[in-house]
């Protein structure tokens, strides 16, 4: 087994600076003055706050409810009072605010009622659900909700479960200490993952600069009688990248477009396994984590820190040197200077490095790329950083994608070796976020277009429906009126024959028909109201009347004679 190690191309060997913080055992950090717990600490939906200002909470009580399947719950790290739910600066390179629950500890550190279970008696869905409810996320840095990675693929059989204890970044030692001191619980946690995923074998990868951790893990594996392989991998940054470790242990390469499960591999961090075990077997949600505090300090050490502890309070425990001018969260290769030293420790915080210019001398100004190719040689993903840099710099994002920019894991090897000191990774991050933003905009525009077109379609349809209804009503009216008129006309002296065309016409044009019907009605009325004194008129009187009618007609004020009216109506 040990003989069949693979290797990945590239990689660098920066000074490890690990010995500083491994000399002392893990110490619990004291309760801070206040805890600022961000609600959004994992990939996926932002949990909804379920407490209000003024509430008393117990340690481990739910304060943020998972929103959707890919989202993990957030809990109160200690007992105390909720002071506010407000926006606070985040440990994020943007320096922007996000919603946090601020808790003032009461000093009692009183737990909720914990409900340990034997996971082997539970159906797998319930184990996953419990992990979600306990807020278990990947503690290696990616903070992906763990339960979301524990669904075995239906099509591809799970071959290898890779457990990541490589911890390749300089300065960071929290996984090392965890394996040294709490190996048994880590192994038990791995057993949970194994039982849920049913892989053929379980490979625990540890860099060969951590012999104590490897020995402790081997002893724990033997003591528990588990068939896990503890494998020491060569120390080479970034061997602890999930894709690199999978490559080294299994020889499989995971492309950007695929998930490792598609290749029958899944990868978890050792600290994740530990928290999963605590969550299931002790009923303790993730309220603390191990953080390495190192760099420009007197006493570098690993602390068990409550989530939400302000970083400056944590850093004070290790007594930073007076010339410290900032805090790096994460390692020197992939970490970043936090925007404000009061930002809280979150689930993704594995290491705090006190920064000063002696430890991290400022880079000399960037020079033009000389196309030496060192970056391509160092890239563990066999990319061509200088090409991607060229196009990212020119904002030609389509080209950067052709050079597989999304395969870049932002490990920083290329920037590390570049003789021209070009901050290559910053260009790649810029290009990636620009591409994502465009994608979002495009999707929003497509959605807007669809809704706009649907609204127009709906309005047209409503208009058509209305017109049709009106026409129908008018036609019915007209037909009714025409029928009435016909009946009235039949009762009077008018010839029914003259009415017929009007009725026929009505069907064709409701408005015209309505007019015609009204005229017919008036005529019928007029005819029905024949004067009664006409029976006994003399010839002279008749002549006189005819003359009057003729005059009136000539003046255009007479009621048109029936025949003329008919012609007009047609």
């Amino acid at each position, binding site marked *: 087994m040990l003989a069949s190690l693979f290797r990945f191309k590239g990689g660098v060997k920066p000074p490890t600076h690990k010995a500083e913080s491994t000399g002392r055992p893990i110490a619990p950090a004291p309760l801070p003055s206040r805890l600022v717990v961000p609600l959004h600490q994992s990939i996926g939906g932002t949990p909804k706050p379920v407490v209000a200002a003024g509430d008393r909470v117990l340690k481990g009580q739910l304060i943020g409810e998972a929103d959707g399947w890919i989202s993990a719950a957030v809990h109160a790290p200690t007992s105390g009072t909720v002071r506010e739910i407000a926006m606070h600066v985040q440990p994020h390179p943007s320096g922007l605010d996000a919603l946090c629950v601020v808790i003032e500890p009461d000093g009692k550190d009183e737990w909720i009622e914990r409900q340990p279970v034997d996971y082997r008696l539970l159906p797998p869905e319930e184990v996953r659900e419990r992990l979600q409810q306990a807020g278990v996320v990947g503690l290696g840095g990616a903070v992906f909700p763990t339960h979301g990675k524990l669904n075995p693929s239906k099509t591809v059989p799970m071959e290898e479960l890779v457990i990541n204890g490589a911890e390749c970044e300089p300065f960071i030692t929290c996984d090392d200490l965890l394996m040294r001191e709490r190996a048994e619980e880590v192994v038990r946690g791995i057993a949970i993952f194994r039982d849920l995923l049913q892989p053929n074998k379980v490979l625990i990868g540890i860099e060969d600069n951590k012999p104590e951790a490897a020995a402790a893990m081997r002893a724990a594996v033997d003591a528990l009688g588990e068939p896990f392989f503890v494998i020491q991998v060569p120390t080479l940054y970034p061997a602890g990248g999930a894709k690199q470790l999978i490559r080294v242990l299994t020889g499989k390469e995971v492309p950007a477009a695929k998930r490792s499960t598609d290749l029958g591999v899944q990868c978890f961090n050792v600290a994740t396994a530990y928290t999963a075990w605590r969550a299931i077997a002790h009923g303790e949600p993730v309220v603390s984590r191990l953080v390495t505090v190192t760099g420009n300090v007197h006493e570098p050490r690993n602390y068990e820190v409550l989530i939400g502890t302000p970083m400056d309070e944590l850093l004070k425990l290790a007594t930073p040197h007076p010339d410290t*001018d900032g805090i790096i969260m994460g390692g020197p290769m992939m970490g970043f200077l936090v*925007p404000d*030293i009061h930002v809280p420790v979150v689930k993704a915080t594995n290491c705090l490095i006190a920064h000063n210019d002696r430890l991290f001398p400022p880079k000399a100004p960037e020079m033009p790329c000389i196309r030496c190719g060192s970056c391509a040689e160092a890239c563990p993903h066999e990319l061509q950083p200088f090409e991607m840099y060229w196009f990212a710099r020119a904002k030609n994002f389509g080209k950067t994608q052709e050079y597989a920019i999304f395969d870049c894991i932002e490990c920083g090897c290329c920037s590390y070796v570049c003789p021209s000191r070009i901050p290559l990774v910053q260009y790649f991050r810029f290009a990636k976020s620009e591409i994502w933003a465009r994608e979002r905009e495009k999707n929003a525009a497509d959605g807007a277009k669809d*809704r706009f077109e649907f*609204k127009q379609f709906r309005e047209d349809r409503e208009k058509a429906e209305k017109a049709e209804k009106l026409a129908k009503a008018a036609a019915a009216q007209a037909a009714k009126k025409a029928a009435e008129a016909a009946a009235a006309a039949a009762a009077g002296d008018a010839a029914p024959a003259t009415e017929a065309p009007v009725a026929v016409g009505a069907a064709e044009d409701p408005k015209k028909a309505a007019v015609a019907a009204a005229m017919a009605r008036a005529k019928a009325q007029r005819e029905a109201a024949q004067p009664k004194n006409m029976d006994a008129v003399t010839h002279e009187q008749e002549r006189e009347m005819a003359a009057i009618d003729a005059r009136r007609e000539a003046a255009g004020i007479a009621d048109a004679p029936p025949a003329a009216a008919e012609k007009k109506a047609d």
Partner: protein
Amino acid sequence: MDILLAIAIMALGAVVLGAALGYASIKFKVEGDPLVEKIEAILPQTQCGQCSYPGCKPYAEAIAKGEADINLCPPGGMEGVQRLADLLGREVKPLEAEEKPKQVAIIDEQTCIGCTLCIQACPVDAIVGAAKQMHTIIAPLCTGCELCLPPCPVECILMAPVSETIDNWKWKYPVVEIKPAALRDAA
């Protein structure tokens, strides 16, 4: 004799190819106008009518016909003009109006009287509400077109620029590394 055969072969070839082309032109007929679609894909679909056309598609059609200039869409900004110029091989022109950051409408729900006029004005169905009920904007769907502002009888709709959050924050173009001054008081 040979020449007749040659002519016959060529004629046959012509007939066969002609038939094939004729068939292909029916079978693979392109629906709609591809140029209009390409132009429309560049327009931001805000549907605001600031270009003086009743929506992005009519404007795209007008551009395709050569009736409209390419610099009339303020939401698309200079970048949109640039992309249209690239697509159509026309010259880049400065935008006819000033560029504004993307905005989103907000209804003051206390003041709203529920007249439904804004719903009718919204081109992309981003407002929900019912007669005499409070109305509200579905912010992710709002394109910021401002068409709902004029019809509101109580003037309770206002526009706010879309704020930057951690989710939509973008890494900046790396020119000079700027370190926040607040870090000096660590330790």
